[in-house]
């Protein structure tokens, strides 16, 4: 997958120590990244540290880094690696990708398009949701539509969408629970 020209430009500006661009990237991605990290580490303080570390590393080492992915992917992959590192030191592993799913669900701009294996897992779980919930959930997490768009497609208020998504997440957790139980016994 080739890099978008916008991303190439952004990375170049960072290499050239453009503080304004750096600050803009930070303001834009910080909340999403922290919430994503919360799917792994839960503690706000720890998550903020990890995300901030990544930004420091980016600033200090931009010349050396080989950016091959989009800006968004760079940040999210770095946070994921940082979290997994932290978890390794706590002797925790996550073979069923439960944390990744939770992390994705935490992000407001989540769209599972980053990881095909995860999409499969989520699709399977979604197929067991009640039809109405499944519809809304697919639009949000697999097609990456914004709440406004979903509201207009389904002809329901944004608030109702939000509630449905919350309920869907809860149900999804229960479904994942059942499926992982089966895996464990096997």
């Amino acid at each position, binding site marked *: 997958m080739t890099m978008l020209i916008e991303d190439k430009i952004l990375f170049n500006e960072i290499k050239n120590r453009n503080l304004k661009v750096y600050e803009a990237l930070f303001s834009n991605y910080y*909340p999403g990244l922290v919430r994503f990290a919360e799917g792994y580490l839960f503690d706000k303080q720890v998550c903020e540290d990890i995300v901030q570390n990544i930004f420091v590393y980016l600033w200090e080492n931009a010349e050396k880094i080989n950016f091959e992915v989009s800006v968004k992917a760079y940040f999210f992959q770095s946070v994921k690696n940082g979290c997994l590192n932290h978890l390794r030191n706590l002797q925790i592993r996550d073979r069923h990708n439960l944390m990744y799913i939770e992390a994705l669900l935490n992000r407001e701009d989540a769209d599972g398009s980053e990881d095909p294996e995860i999409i499969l897992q989520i699709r399977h779980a979604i197929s067991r949701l009640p039809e109405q919930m499944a519809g809304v959930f697919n639009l949000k997490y697999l097609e990456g539509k914004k709440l406004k768009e979903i509201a207009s497609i389904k002809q329901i208020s944004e608030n109702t969408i939000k509630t449905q998504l919350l309920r869907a997440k809860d149900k999804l957790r229960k479904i994942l629970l059942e499926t*992982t139980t089966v895996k464990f016994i096997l």
Partner: protein
Amino acid sequence: MPKEHTIIDFEIIWKKINGNLIAQEELFLSKWLDESPLHRQYYESALRFYREGSNFIDAKRETEKAWKSLQTKISKEGRSSSRWIVPSIAVVAAIFLIVDLIWFSSKTETPAVTASKAQQIKPGTNQATLILNDGSVHNLSTSGTLVLNADGAEIKSRGTKLEYIEKIGAATEIKYNTLNIPRGGEFNLQLADGTNVWLNSETVLRYPVQFTGKERRVELSGEAYFEVAKNEKVPFIVESGGQMVKVLGTKFNISSYKENHFIYTTLVHGSIEVSIKGKPEIVQILTPNEQSTIDMTEGKISKSTVDPYQFIAWKEGRFVFQDQTLESMMQTLSKWYDIEVAYAREDLKNMRFTGNLRRYDDFGEVLNKLKKTNEVDFAVDNKKITLK
């Protein structure tokens, strides 16, 4: 000291919180939890998160705060390779202890023997002793959950926070309780009027159980951060070591340790009046971002503008040192880690450091960071640290 490390799959933690575990899994979880307080800490964070949701709420504000913090960690000048300035033992040299540097440095470093001894010095925990009006003592750290009906209120403790719920009924006399935090401890207290207090190590707070009458008066020795419930008709007064602070409803930090002869009061929000007991003519009014300093030996009061974050960071789980002497840093750290500090050379005491450390790190982490500055070395003997 090699420890046996059990690797747990997150699935077990997840199932424990969201569903059910079979006996085998329960045992495994217990074993993993027992292996390190950090494991337990992680588990508690997960539990809290699933029950109460994220703490990251005001995204705009959090991001602004984080940006400020980030700016102190990045170098803005040209691309110099020696980013961490290592000064000689000169007059005012700021040495940056960068927390992040550790995260990226190679993990193949084997700690020195003394450093691994220091790893055993653990950070503080929630510890407190409650003394009721009749003098009976309750240890809040070991008793875990505590529910009492005493002195006209329902008193609840859940291991980290002590709460008072006022019982309706006229109080005939004001009854006092005392909360005692030892070295290496910290605790959270909610008074009957809704005022929230964070108490740091080596601190004692004496307070009325019920708030009746014309004022709400408490006595402090040590350090505490207050968020006073607003009540314009009944001012909140904090007495500490000869200082009086009068408050209507506001957020501030008082540091009043007997061994210093200075009392520092930092105002975050609202408005407070600081005065010296017995000298009613001296009254200082603080506005947000101001700090009052009382020199107890001279009986003098002065005021300055500050960034309050440095002084309340402890309640947010961090130590923030801004161009501070090693001696003063060690005084703060020794209370939290419950250690003794000695200096091989007098001039070490005046070395200055700037840094931002995590309160819940083992003391070994702190020493490692100091060592990386190449200016200080140390020897560890049980709970006594000698800096050289």
